[in-house]
């Protein structure tokens, strides 16, 4: 597929940020999607989910189990985590680019977004 040239004028920071954000979103979503497809395929091949209405709770032990003992559910846990972390990773990337460019207003905005995302995870763990 041909790459379209940028269709808006932009400053140097945005020009640096744009391809990096594009790559992050593409790679993160591709890895997440492959893991989800593999997880659903394994679940189907093994006769469907063992507990069709059983929900999952994200925890460090759930991720460890998914990594050490690959299964349909484990692949789905990893896929969901990778997918959920992909937009967050581009916030980290933007913060780093704005920091290097000393773009204080946008550095403040992206750092604040990052702080709230970290707080979300902390609140989610302890709530």
């Amino acid at each position: 597929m041909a790459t379209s040239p940028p269709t808006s004028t932009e400053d140097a920071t945005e020009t640096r940020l744009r391809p990096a954000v594009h790559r992050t979103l593409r790679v993160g979503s591709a890895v997440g999607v492959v893991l989800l497809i593999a997880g659903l395929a394994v679940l189907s091949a093994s006769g469907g989910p063992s507990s069709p209405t059983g929900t999952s709770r994200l925890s460090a032990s759930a991720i460890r189990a998914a990594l050490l003992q690959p299964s349909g559910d484990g692949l789905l846990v990893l896929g969901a985590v990778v997918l959920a972390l992909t937009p967050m990773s581009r916030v980290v990337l933007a913060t780093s680019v704005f920091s290097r460019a000393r773009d204080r207003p946008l550095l403040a905005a992206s750092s604040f977004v990052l702080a709230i995302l970290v707080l979300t995870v902390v609140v989610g763990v302890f709530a």
Partner: protein
Amino acid sequence: MTLPIDPGSAWWAAAGLFLLLAAIAFACGSVGSLIGIGGGVFLIPILVLGFGFEIQLAIAASLLSVVANSCGSAATYVEQGLTNLRLGIFLESSTVVGGLLGALLSVTLLATRQNLLALAFVPVVAIAAALMLRAPRLAPDPNAPKSPFAERLRLSGTLVDPTTGASIAYRATRPAPGLLLTGLAGFGSGLLGVGGGIFNVPAMNAVMNVPLRVATATSTFKIGVTASAGALVYFLAGDMLLWLAASVALGSFAGSLLASHHQYRARTLALRWLFLGVLAVAALLMAARGVGVY
């Protein structure tokens, strides 16, 4: 919760249900991506009313599908230069706060009150329909008042319309009302699992003087962050039905890829009427569910 198809009964039942859910999410995700809303506002009523999923599970699955949808189409829009990255990151600062508050409210106070969540969906859908009834601002207003704050943040840009080749310079204005509206979008996203684009696009287009295509692309870019925060809250709270979330995320991702590559060919007027029709039916059915008659 009784499902119309038991995915645990046989491999073909499981595969068939996964594919059916993915196909539905594909349709919701492609329309959602074209108009910058993610598709959750269509998906949740279908999962709750059509399949009998509990609304909490539908919301959690919808949030993951919005993340997938955002990642798929935002990557294309960013590459095409349609997304205003500075504007998107600036507005995210209020959206994520709203998203966190909405998700926390949903998994704590409203966790056992499914009828309230169903009823809360109705005004959101009504507001979305009202906003969609307003004609979108296709070109920015050249006489829009200058905002020193927006100038300092360099939120302006120039869009080259690929259909006409014309350069459209725009200057974003009114950053404070924009922040407030996108904060509300985040709250709606966290609470109800919708993308939040139903508020983001009109906020950027009608209030902040941003061209519709840039508003749609920037909304798609920013809803991923809010939805991912919400999805993690639900996942950490143990409200994620993984096979459901995976099925709809995959369908929505595929839909977003299709839509983002055909955005210029879309007839936005026809889409708007389709969108309104689906929303009206969804609002009526969710209201009926909320008061216990469906």
